[in-house]
């Protein structure tokens, strides 16, 4: 019996050998093309827009093939673990506050040389954006698209209260008066409408002439007199409107990306809001009559504060295909692609030339134009690009919580925060 089984096996083995050969040939043909991995952070329609760009890049040439996968930006643990483990993707999307801590820690490639070799420089980006993600001369990432905040007010609520719907507050004093006029309380004593809700504390620090850190010396300046003045103003606000009542009211607010957004429902009359509100209101509150303008400032303060936030594309220092990843990154962040992606996200492209590209320019509404003008002419500030990352923001929040509870003075709270961050920063020196 064994003798008969052998002949039948032999051809099968050779058939396998043929298959192996074919596979090897295929593999060697494919190896002319380098595959890079790209962790992109967008789901849904935004993810589809990104995938369309990836597909277009893949079709446009045959040397580099981008394989993208959706890794939510909030999944910092996964990103951190892949970097610490030395097996990261070739191109990764991270929050702005992660860029400098990771880069300074040695986990990210410095893109300075590659960008300048490609002829990309400061003038190609909107004012203040090139420095963003840079620390001590090293550029650790490229902003994906820009989010910018401005001051929003609900015109209908203004009109219903007998106020001029076209006259938003220009000074902090005017803001205080309007806040009082627009705040209402129900028979139970619970808040029905808050005239104004300050959400991003740092904006007011800058409006009062302060700053969280000195961008030139890279020193932390949480106890800056301007910040103290802003905190004293916030403390008065929380005392007057009662932090307990505000928190209680806040617990009933709906999701920001829904028709139950408290601003859309008239529960807040004035607040900060990013340019995404142009798209959000179109979707969730098409009848909302709102205006957008620059932030009010006190006498002698900054009248053109422009808060900017972004996610970043970074190339890990230990990426296997850095050159190919850079090539794709340069293509992805070029004006044409930047314009298209920003339009899909209702964000603003970081590239100056992208603003004029039809893909983006055709989507600009008058409200969007206000945001763009602020970016072009305002005092742009970004989250501090320091190795301490989110710790500084958290300390600012801790200081605010202490001030809200009225346990310490604004100055003391900020001095404590300053000391803590300074101490943490010294570990990196």
């Amino acid at each position, binding site marked *: 019996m064994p003798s008969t089984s052998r002949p039948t096996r032999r051809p099968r083995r050779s058939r396998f050998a043929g298959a192996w050969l074919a596979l090897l040939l295929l593999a060697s043909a494919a190896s002319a093309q380098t595959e890079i991995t790209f962790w992109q952070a967008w789901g849904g329609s935004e993810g589809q827009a990104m995938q369309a760009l990836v597909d277009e890049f893949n079709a446009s040439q045959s040397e580099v093939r981008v394989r993208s996968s959706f890794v939510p930006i909030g999944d*910092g*643990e996964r990103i*951190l673990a892949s*970097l*610490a483990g030395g097996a990261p993707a070739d191109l990764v999307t991270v929050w702005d506050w992660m860029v400098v*801590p*990771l880069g300074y*820690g*040695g*986990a990210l490639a410095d893109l300075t040389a590659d960008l300048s070799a490609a002829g990309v420089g400061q003038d190609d980006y909107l004012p203040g954006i090139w420095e963003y993600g840079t620390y001590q001369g090293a550029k650790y990432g490229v902003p994906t698209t820009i989010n910018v905040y401005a001051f929003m007010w609900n015109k209908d609520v203004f009109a219903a209260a007998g106020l001029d719907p076209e006259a938003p507050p220009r000074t902090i004093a005017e803001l205080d008066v309007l806040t009082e006029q627009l705040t209402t309380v129900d028979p*139970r*004593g*619970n808040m029905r409408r808050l005239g104004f809700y300050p959400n991003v504390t740092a904006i007011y620090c800058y409006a009062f002439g302060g700053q969280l850190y000195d961008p030139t010396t890279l020193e932390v300046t949480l106890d800056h007199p301007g910040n103290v003045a802003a905190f004293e103003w916030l403390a008065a606000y929380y005392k007057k409107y009662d932090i*307990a009542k505000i*928190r*209680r*009211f*806040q*617990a*009933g607010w709906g999701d920001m990306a829904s028709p139950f957004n408290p601003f859309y429902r008239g529960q807040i009359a004035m607040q900060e809001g990013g340019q995404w509100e142009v798209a959000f209101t179109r979707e969730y509150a098409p009848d909302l009559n709102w205006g957008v303008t620059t932030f009010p400032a006190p006498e002698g303060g900054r009248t053109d504060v422009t808060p900017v936030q972004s996610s970043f594309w970074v190339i890990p220092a230990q990426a296997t295909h850095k050159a190919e990843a850079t090539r794709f990154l340069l293509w992805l962040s070029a004006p044409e692609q930047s314009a298209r992606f920003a339009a899909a996200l209702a964000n603003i492209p970081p590239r100056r030339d992208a603003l004029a590209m039809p893909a983006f320019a055709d989507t600009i509404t008058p409200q969007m134009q206000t945001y763009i003008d602020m970016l072009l002419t305002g005092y742009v500030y970004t989250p501090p690009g320091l*190795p*301490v*990352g*989110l*710790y500084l923001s*958290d300390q600012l929040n*801790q200081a605010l*919580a202490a001030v*809200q*509870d009225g346990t310490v003075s604004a100055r003391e709270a900020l001095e404590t925060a300053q000391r803590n961050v300074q101490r*943490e920063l010294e*570990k990196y020196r």
Partner: protein
Amino acid sequence: MRGSRHRAGRPNVLRHMTRRQRRDLWLGLAFVSPWLIGFVVFTVYPVLASLYFSFTDYNVVSAPRWIGTRNYTDLIRDPLFGKTLYNTLYLAAIGIPFSLGLSLVIAMLLNNKVRLQGLFRTVYFLPSVVPAVAAALLWRWFLNPDYGPVNEFLWQLGINGPGWLADPAWSKPALILASLWGVGGSMVIYLAGLQNVPVALYEAADLDGASRWQRFRFVTLPMLSPVILFNLIMGIITSFQAFTNIYIMTGGGPSNSTLVYALYLYQNAFQFFRMGYASAMAWVLLAITAVALVGVFRTSGWVYYEARS
């Protein structure tokens, strides 16, 4: 022979095994090796590594730098360390007795032979099956100060309910209230314990003229005490590590009133890039848990072990 072996001290186990026994031992070890290797690689190594990191300045991406006990001394100076420890102990000290008591009461009620007993048991156990995230979201809405059914009910009684999760004074009680919804897990363990109490003991108690309370006090409770001890220990461990529901329901706020130890540890490790500090926090938590558990065992004279007597 046997005597001499004993005098020689600890015998080499392998030498006194038959060939077959030895082969079975290696084979057995080979079969469990995926778990042994997994245990060493994914549990023992990280635990020991975290002990080392706790003595270093480590931001995850650059190499750890030895700083001795500075993380531990920093902990003592950190006001949030004390605050988060207090919050955690508060939730444990108030939450565990409530949950132990409530689950015991429900288990005893469900141990009665009533119609639809199976249905009732299922209904009370059901919340334990609901994913933690879904339950947390549900409770956030339930306790909503302005729109939630709890405050609406209180308003019908003429009470303007508290801000619950939005009020630093009420946020911890609110979390405890929400956690009581999930007592089904320990309830099931009590139920199993109750069914193991010999009927003969109740019959003997009846013959002696014991009242319902006496039957509970002198038969049920002692027979159930090992189960209570078990639930107590599990309660301590899980409440010291509480994270998910709080992360979702309050994120630690308002004003740090629900910032529990594990949440602060997580922030330090993954948001502030202070992995060394977070490792030190983890070891302090382990020490505190160990002390608490040793304390529980030391004072467990009230536990009655049937097999021992």
